[in-house]
Each structure stands twice: as structure tokens, then as C-alpha cells.
């Protein structure tokens, strides 16, 4: 049974990523996704929000090309996905930094794997290390960094390869609350500047409403998109003001009521 997403906006921007009837059954019979269909508009941040077991990380990894769907197709800019590609970059929940490499090398690693020359990739990486706020830390090692700083390196690495689509797997879940809030605010800046498409997996309602252009609510068993919400929040006001905005609070409450019954 396919469940089509409910489109709310009038002028739909062009689609960056299109997921069509994707089913994923793990060996052993666990059905993570069942005929999932969803579109991700270009240049926007779409969150995949839902309780555990709804298949959001599985979906993200299929889009990234790290997992193969049992059936169904995924296209990026109308090109079918057969594996990882230059136009997509992944930000990992546990940072996936190489402990034996400096910040500079980690941030440049995506370019290193693509064969970019050293001086060139270091120049690019340096720019993005600065963009994520880690200027001066280029020669430090991951064990010398806090969790928040490590995730920034992961983000710099993803930005440095200049992919069009950034896939983020609960990127802020492994840092403390204060750092997390700061990240969300910084992420809004990055989105505005880079103009890329972001697909963002999270289980935090507030986070999803705060950063997203649209939120896809995923429910488990069978995993499906139950609703797509476009938070109509004015993001030009101050970060603190956003968190007190009645529209923001209403949407959060509404989503919570919808998901309540699915929390174990």
C-alpha cells in the first residue's frame, strides 16, 4: 500500500530526491520500510521525524546508497541511485571521525578519497573548518575535541565535498543540550548560505520544527508517512524568539499529540 505525502505548499520547488515505493526487508524478516514514497524539495531542509522503529535511518541510508532497497527506486536529480555518489554526503550520528587523523585531514577526507591534490583539498577543508567555527583547530586530534566540536568536523567534511544533498543521521543526538541548541541555530545559517538540500533524521520534535522547511512524520509498523507539515514560522526573528513563538509551540504540541500513541 503506498501512502502519498500530503503536499501543502502551492508552488512546489523542484524535487531533489524522489523515493518511490521503497521496501526494505532485512535478512531475518524484519520489515523496516514498506512501499515508502516521498519527495524531497530542492534547497530545503526536510526532516524525517518519528518514534524508533519507523525506518527513518534505514530510509536515509538507502538514499545515501549505503543500503540497497529490497524493491523500489530512489532518484537524485532524476538519476537513479545505485550506490554512494558525489552529489550526496552523509553526516554520521557517532561522528565517524578517524582518531588517528587531525581535524584538517578528517575534514578533507572526502576529497582525499576522490583523489583531489593535497594543497587543494586542504584549502577547501580549511574554508569549511572555519565555516563551522573551528578555525585554529586544524591540527588538533579528535580525542582533544569535545563531542560538539567533533560533530562540526563531520559537518565540515560533508560540506567540503560540495554535494548537493546532505544527509544527516540524528547529527546532534550525541551532544549535550546546550551545544545542541547552538547547533540548531548554526544549522539555520548554513542552510541559508549553502542553498543545498538537507534531509535530516531526528527523533526530537522541537528540533524538527525549529530547523525544517517541512517535516515528514513517519510512523512504524507498517512504516509510512502519515503527514507532511510545513512549519510556517518566521525564521528571521532571533533564535530565542522563535522558541517562544506561538506558532512554533502549537506545531510542536500538535505533532506530539499525533505521535504520542506510538511512543513505547
Amino acid at each position, binding site marked *: 500500500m503506498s501512502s502519498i505525502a500530503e503536499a501543502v505548499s502551492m508552488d512546489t520547488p523542484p524535487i531533489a530526491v524522489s523515493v518511490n515505493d521503497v521496501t526494505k526487508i532485512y535478512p531475518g524478516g524484519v520489515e523496516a520500510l514498506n512501499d515508502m514514497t516521498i519527495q524531497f524539495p530542492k534547497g530545503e531542509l526536510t526532516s524525517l521525524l518519528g518514534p524508533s522503529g519507523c525506518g527513518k535511518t534505514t530510509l536515509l541510508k538507502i538514499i545515501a*546508497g*549505503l543500503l540497497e532497497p529490497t524493491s523500489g527506486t530512489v532518484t537524485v536529480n532524476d538519476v537513479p541511485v545505485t550506490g554512494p555518489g558525489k552529489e550526496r554526503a552523509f553526516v554520521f*550520528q557517532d561522528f565517524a571521525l578517524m*582518531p*588517528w587523523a587531525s581535524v584538517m585531514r578528517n575534514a578533507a577526507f*572526502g576529497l582525499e*578519497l576522490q583523489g583531489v591534490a593535497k594543497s587543494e583539498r586542504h584549502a577547501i577543508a580549511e574554508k569549511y573548518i572555519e565555516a563551522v567555527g573551528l578555525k585554529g583547530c586544524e591540527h588538533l586530534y579528535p580525542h582533544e575535541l569535545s563531542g560538539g566540536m567533533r560533530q562540526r568536523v563531520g559537518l565540515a*567534511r560533508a560540506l567540503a565535498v560540495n554535494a548537493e544533498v546532505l544527509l544527516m543521521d540524528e547529527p546532534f543526538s550525541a551532544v549535550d543540550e546546550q551545544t545542541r541548541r547552538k547547533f540548531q541555530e548554526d544549522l539555520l545559517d548554513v542552510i541559508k548560505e549553502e542553498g543545498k538540500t538537507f534531509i535530516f533524521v531526528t527523533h526530537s520534535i522541537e528540533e524538527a520544527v525549529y530547523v525544517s522547511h517541512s517535516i515528514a512524520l513517519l510512523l512504524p509498523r507498517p512504516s509510512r508517512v502519515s503527514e507532511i507539515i510545513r512549519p510556517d514560522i518566521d525564521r528571521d526573528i532571533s533564535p530565542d524568539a522563535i522558541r517562544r513563538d506561538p506558532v512554533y509551540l502549537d506545531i510542536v504540541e500538535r505533532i506530539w499529540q499525533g505521535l504520542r500513541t506510538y511512543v513505547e
Partner: protein
Amino acid sequence: MYSFIIHPLTLRFLSVVIAFGTWEYLGRIPISPAFPTFLETMSALGGMLADGSMAAVYPATFQPLLIGLIISSVLGIACGVFMGLNAKAEWFGAPVFIVLQSAPLAALIPLLTFAYGIGLTSKILTVSIMAMPVIVLNAYTAVRHTPTSMIEMGTSYLGSPRQIILKIIIPSASPVIYAGLRLGAAMGFIGAILAELLITPTGIGDLITYNQSIAEYDKMYAAIFSIMVFAVIFIEILERTEYIFFRPDKRVSQ
């Protein structure tokens, strides 16, 4: 004052003094006519170093030791890494090495002597057989335990299999591989000495058994002391060089 007394260096010095002092005391009682004192042993050591008899003898010990260690390190790491990366290799190889690791491999020495005689070959084989299992198993385990997310990261950024092995798996595995090399070196030393005591006395084994047979116990103990010190220093150097070659983030591995 108290912090001076319990300072690591003070206590280490104290324990050395106590250990060697006890040795001296036991030698003076004496607990056995075959037990020289600490000072007697040290002066015999000095004598043997001075007259060159020790220097003349060590190369014969080191030849099979170093050759054996190099062979078992290179082969061992290669085997272990291959087993970690390839399921078929793992299926064929892992059980063999697991059995070998808990087995008293020294028992193979009479067999080797029988097949290959009492020369250099048997000794090299002894060292290699003693050292290899732990090196192989450490390398294998290390590769298998590479964090999945790091491999996924390499795949997601379009790393080829070769790139992922060389740039991610091997560096990630190197601390455990290195620990295996240290353990292998320790086993190799045991193998080298056993070879000299069991197969045919050469090198330092010769010094030990000869002096034992002519009841020059101070020289015998001096020879034993020297090889023990040497082994410890060798392995200590191995430990300290890890971060130079492999992992700058692991300054102290312990």
C-alpha cells in the same frame, strides 16, 4: 616528605634496591653453593662484557631471533589481515590459529629438530612458530573489530575497497596489531632461548650451559641476566615506537 616517599621513582628505586639486596643476602647465606650473590653476578657480567666474550656470542643468538621475528611479523600480519577481510580465509585459518594459541608450541621443537637438524633452520622455525599465532590472531581480531560506522563513512565518501583497507582499516587496527607484535616478540625470545637450550647450544645458550657445566655459576647467572635485560629493553623499545610509526594519538598504549 610523604609525597617524596611515595613518588613513583622513589618507590621504583626502593624496590630495585630491595630486590637486588635480597639477592645479595641470599647469595651470602648461601642458600645453595650454586647461587652466586648479586655482586658476584654483576662483576662476572662486567668481566664478560669487557673481555668481549659476550659480544662474540650474541650474534649467534640474534640471527635466528631477528630472522624469525621478521618472518613471523610479515607473514603473521599479512595472514591476519587477510583472514579479517576475507570470509573464506577466516573459515580456513581462524580455527587453526586459535588451537595453536593455547597449545604449548614448545612441544614442537623436538619434531623440528628431528626434521630439520640442529642448525639455523630449526632455530628460525622455532622462533617463528612460537611468535606467529598471537601475531596472526591479533591482526585478525583488530581488522574484524574495525568500527562499522567508519567503514560506512569511507563507503559513503566513495572510497574504493583498496582505499578503505589502507586508509581506514589498517590504521584503525594498528594498536592491536602492534600489541600482537610485542607479545610475538616476547614469545620469539622464549623460542630463541629454548632453541639454544634444547637443540644445540650456541650464542647465549652456550654461555649459560657451558658455565653451568663447569660450575661457574656467577658467569651463568650473568649470561641469563643479560638476555633477560635485553629482551625487556627490546620489547620496551617496541612499545615506545608505536606512536612514531602508527598512531600519533596513542602516546601511551597500556
